[in-house]
């Protein structure tokens, strides 16, 4: 025992205290603080997302409209790449050496140990050639992926397309999507995205410090399988869709066909169209820009987005509303002196001097006078102030789905235009206006905007004698055969059934012996109505809508061909061919009949040049000939080629309008 014996306690105490400190700290980080476990899992775990096959879309007869086709992405892991003949490699995959270099630098920057896409969507041929020689290029491998493929290249606007998600869409989805994921951008692909995309699977793998895969986590206990997207059975009939697109070739316009008893859309043609396969693959970006800049706007979904004044087909609605209002009945006779005189000096010309016509005859002959008279009576002589008479009329018309969206299962539908009373009050700065101020509404002209879809829906309403199902594009989802409940509800338009008979009779006569006589089919009774829509910007639009057969209708159809002239010349025969194709699956008309429609080119013939030349002509008259040669012509010429912005007829139109308004203003007709 030495004198410092007691110091052993001091030393032992210090050692014990320090050891306890270690223990407490370890207890804290191991047992209490859970962040380390999370960090450890972050270190080791990688969630690999397994993409399911996107649902395919079929037509109503289960023919494929869109399917998936394998493509091959060339992947690279820069850390594993050994020296190789880059030039031969570039030739093999068909890229330039400098692109190869920049791409390789990019991949290296991303990660040395993680795979990244080196070249997207190699063709099957390139991939096969590459696959054979891949052993020469360690670090590269080919990965399968699937892209959309459209076997018949039809129904582009109907089906829509998919594309990589943008930041906005990622944000909107609550980060459901990741960068590089695909999402439906338009058409069915967009509106049924939730169903088509399926359920993504997750594979949890473990990686080491260099991100090399080291097997599955817990033998895949937390992994989930990918569930393929639902297959959609669309309501489209591939036969008439394809035929319709052929008929609309080189024309601008739309075809919408609806099955009246279900509201299913049988054909949805928007012309000019594009090959939907253009929106897939390596050239997608270029194609997209090309389509976007095209003057005829192929990306514009005309059936739901183009709004036209309906023209004469609107008379059918007026005939129904007028009967319901008891303004006319089927026997009401009106005499047509070749036009309808209204207001102080107003006169709405009719096509012919029809003489005495009843309602059926007025529809058959499309008599402007009859409907001008009827409309005036509905608005002005309803026992209310004309403005309220108009409101009542508008209310009745809007029930036909006009002026509001039909909520079809496609994105970006437009509602069209059915002007409110307030619009006219504002325009005339007075509430004291009557039918004379918007008489053109009686014949479907003026401030009306109706989409081809709405037109076809009106045809379906008449076919059903008073109700419609919301038009929709999807018949069944997967094997479940379910669709949205609102598609099975009848929407009544507030017109009693008996009022349809004279209208249907009139429409039947239109085809049997009226304006659309040329479109008659033996043994199939078509009830239709032609329309020739006056177009202040160019040639008249040709419009026709119809349903067939008269008894137990199977198809209601609307056809619009822009700048084509008479409804009976173009739209009606196209509709008639499609009706026959749909009902009979064959065409009984002679070949020349079909060929005329197939081969016609009704695209505007470089309107820019045409209009400008007339402009120059008018200038010519004012300026001496030699001065044109020297100065004016050379200056004007370059302008001709780029746009049609040379103003010409506008001032005169405005002048006309002004004089028209002035003549109308003084005395509201009572």
């Amino acid at each position: 025992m030495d004198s410092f014996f007691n110091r052993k306690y001091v030393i032992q105490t210090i050692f014990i205290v320090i050891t306890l400190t270690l223990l407490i700290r370890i207890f804290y980080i191991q047992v209490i603080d859970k962040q380390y476990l999370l960090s450890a899992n972050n270190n080791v775990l990688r969630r690999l997302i397994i993409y399911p096959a996107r649902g395919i879309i079929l037509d109503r007869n289960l023919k494929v409209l869109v399917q998936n086709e394998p493509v091959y992405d060339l992947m690279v892991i820069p850390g594993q790449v050994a020296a190789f003949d880059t030039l031969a490699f570039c030739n093999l995959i068909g890229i330039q050496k400098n692109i190869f270099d920049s791409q390789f630098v990019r991949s290296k920057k991303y990660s040395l140990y993680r795979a990244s896409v080196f070249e997207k969507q190699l063709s099957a041929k390139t991939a096969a050639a590459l696959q054979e020689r891949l052993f020469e290029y360690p670090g590269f491998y080919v990965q399968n992926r699937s892209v959309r493929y459209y076997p018949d290249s039809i129904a582009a606007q109907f089906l829509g397309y998919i594309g990589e998600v943008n930041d906005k869409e990622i944000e909107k989805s609550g980060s459901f999507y990741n960068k590089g994921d695909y999402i439906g951008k338009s058409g069915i692909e967009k509106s049924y995205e939730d169903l088509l995309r399926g359920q993504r699977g997750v594979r949890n793998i473990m990686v080491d410090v260099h991100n090399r895969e080291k097997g599955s986590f817990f033998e895949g206990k937390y992994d989930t399988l990918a569930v393929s997207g639902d297959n959609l059975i669309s309501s489209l009939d591939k036969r008439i869709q394809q035929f319709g697109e052929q008929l609309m070739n080189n024309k601008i316009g739309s075809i919408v066909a609806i099955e009246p008893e279900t509201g299913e859309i049988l054909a949805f043609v928007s012309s000019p169209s594009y090959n939907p396969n253009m929106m897939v693959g390596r050239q997608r970006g270029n194609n997209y820009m090309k389509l976007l800049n095209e003057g005829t706007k192929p990306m514009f979904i005309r059936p739901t987005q183009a709004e036209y004044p309906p023209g004469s087909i609107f008379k059918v609605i007026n005939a129904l509303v007028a009967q319901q209002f008891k303004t006319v009945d089927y026997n009401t006779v009106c005499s047509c002196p070749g036009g309808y005189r209204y207001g102080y000096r107003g006169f709405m010309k009719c096509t012919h001097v029809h003489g005495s016509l009843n309602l059926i005859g007025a529809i058959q002959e499309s008599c402007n006078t009859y409907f001008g008279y009827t409309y005036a009576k509905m608005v002005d002589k309803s026992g209310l102030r004309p403005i309220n008479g108009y409101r009542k009329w508008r209310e009745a018309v809007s029930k036909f789905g006009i002026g509001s969206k039909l909520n079809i299962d496609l994105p970006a539908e437009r509602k069209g235009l059915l002007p409110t009373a307030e619009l006219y009050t504002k325009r005339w700065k007075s509430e004291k206006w009557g039918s004379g101020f918007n008489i053109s509404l009686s014949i479907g002209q003026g401030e009306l905007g109706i989409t081809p879809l709405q037109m076809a829906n009106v045809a379906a309403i008449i076919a059903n004698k008073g109700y419609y199902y919301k038009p929709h594009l999807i018949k069944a989802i997967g094997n479940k055969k379910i669709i949205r409940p609102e598609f099975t509800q009848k929407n009544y338009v507030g017109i009693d059934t008996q009022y349809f008979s004279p209208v249907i009779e009139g429409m039947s006569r239109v085809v049997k012996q009226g304006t659309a006589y040329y479109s008659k089919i033996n043994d199939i009774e078509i009830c239709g109505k032609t329309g020739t829509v006056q177009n202040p910007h160019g040639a008249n639009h040709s419009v026709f809508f119809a349903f067939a057969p008269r008894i137990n209708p199977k198809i209601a159809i609307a056809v619009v061909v822009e700048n084509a002239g008479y409804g009976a010349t173009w739209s009606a025969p196209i509709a008639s061919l499609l009706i026959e194709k749909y009902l009979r699956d064959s065409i009984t008309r002679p070949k020349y009949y079909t060929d005329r429609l197939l081969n016609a080119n009704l695209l505007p013939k470089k309107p820019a040049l045409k209009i400008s030349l007339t402009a120059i002509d008018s200038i010519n008259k004012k300026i001496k000939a030699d001065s044109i040669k020297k100065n004016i012509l050379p200056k004007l010429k370059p302008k001709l080629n780029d746009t049609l912005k040379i103003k010409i007829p506008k001032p005169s139109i405005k002048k006309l309008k002004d004089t028209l308004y002035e003549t109308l203003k003084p005395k509201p007709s009572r």
Partner: protein
Amino acid sequence: MINQRSFFFNVDWLSILLFLFLITIGWFSIYAAVYDENAVYIIDFSSNSGKQLLFIMVSIMLGVVILLLDSKFFYVLSPVFYGLTIMLLVAVLLIGRNVGGNQAWIPIGSFRLQPSEFAKWASSLLLARYISSLTGKLNDFSNALPAIVILIFPMLLIMLQPDTGSALVFLALVFTLYREGLSPYFLVAGFMMIILFVCTLLFTKLVVIIVISFVSAFIIYYFYKKNKRIVATTIATFILSVVFIFSVDFVYNNVLQAHQKSRIDLLLGLINDPKGAGYNVNQSKIAIGSGGLLGRGYLQGTQTKFNFVPEQSTDFIFCTIGEEWGFAGTSTVISLYLFLILRLIFIAERQRSSFSRIYGYTVACIIFCHFFINIGMTIGLVPVIGIPLPFISYGGSSLISFTILLFILLKLDANRMGII
């Protein structure tokens, strides 16, 4: 006097048992750290675990040999051992192999000798011999100076390698000196220096000086009439502290190297760099922390198996234990160490000869220092100082020198009734 033939009954079997426990845990941990599912060989002499098995066998044989030697052997030859290790420390600076910036290894065949590991027990032996031969007080400067020289000399050589970590271990022997009569003020001063150093880095100099001014003023006010000596001491301490505080910046900026500074900054939370300088400690904490209460199970640790933790079979071997065995494992290992160290102090205290006692304390201090610094750095309590965990970390020099260190004490203890 106990019969020489009953020698093995005199050996402290409890310590040997603890020693065996620790090397076994060590081997299994090393096996787990280098474990690769694709290459499962229990004994593969090219892998760390295979080599460690070899080292373990050598160590045990050396231990037996030490126990069979005459206990006077170590007393008598301590200057020779010391001289040899000093020569080796000089040699390593000349012919050593540089690994990771440290010139600490002398290559011998396929193995590498680390002289700094052997310097610990050689210095301990000579220190014990010197102090036990003292007649005066250790507190006297003339008596303390040779003791300090014995320690400083190998320290300086090791720092030249530069291996600051191994050199720092010698400072732990201050506890031994304290036990033998060194003034407690040295301990207090050392403790205060650490506190002041940390505080000065964490706060500003001004704040620290104001705080110690208040503390000093309070002490002076309280003892002013009762004890003049305390007042004088306080004033002296205060002045020295202020000088020290002003020297902190100088030491920090001019003496410490960049990586040492960043390790201290990381520990104090002055910088946060989990991807760079702080990577090791961060990953080490993640590995240990993810173990939870019971761990992930043997060979199931992902952090260590997939190499997220660097140096995992040597300096960071404790991570493997922490991840695979959880708090149950770490607390067991820590308890084993504490038990061993307290047992060693107990053994030291029961020696009749002061040489054996002093040597016993040096063994306890060195093992404790390694244990505390190594585990402390893996859990972010101590700056990263690369020294091994005794008996557990992979490494032949380390294991063999710790075994020699321990077994010399056990030999002396077995012979405690004899006269040295």
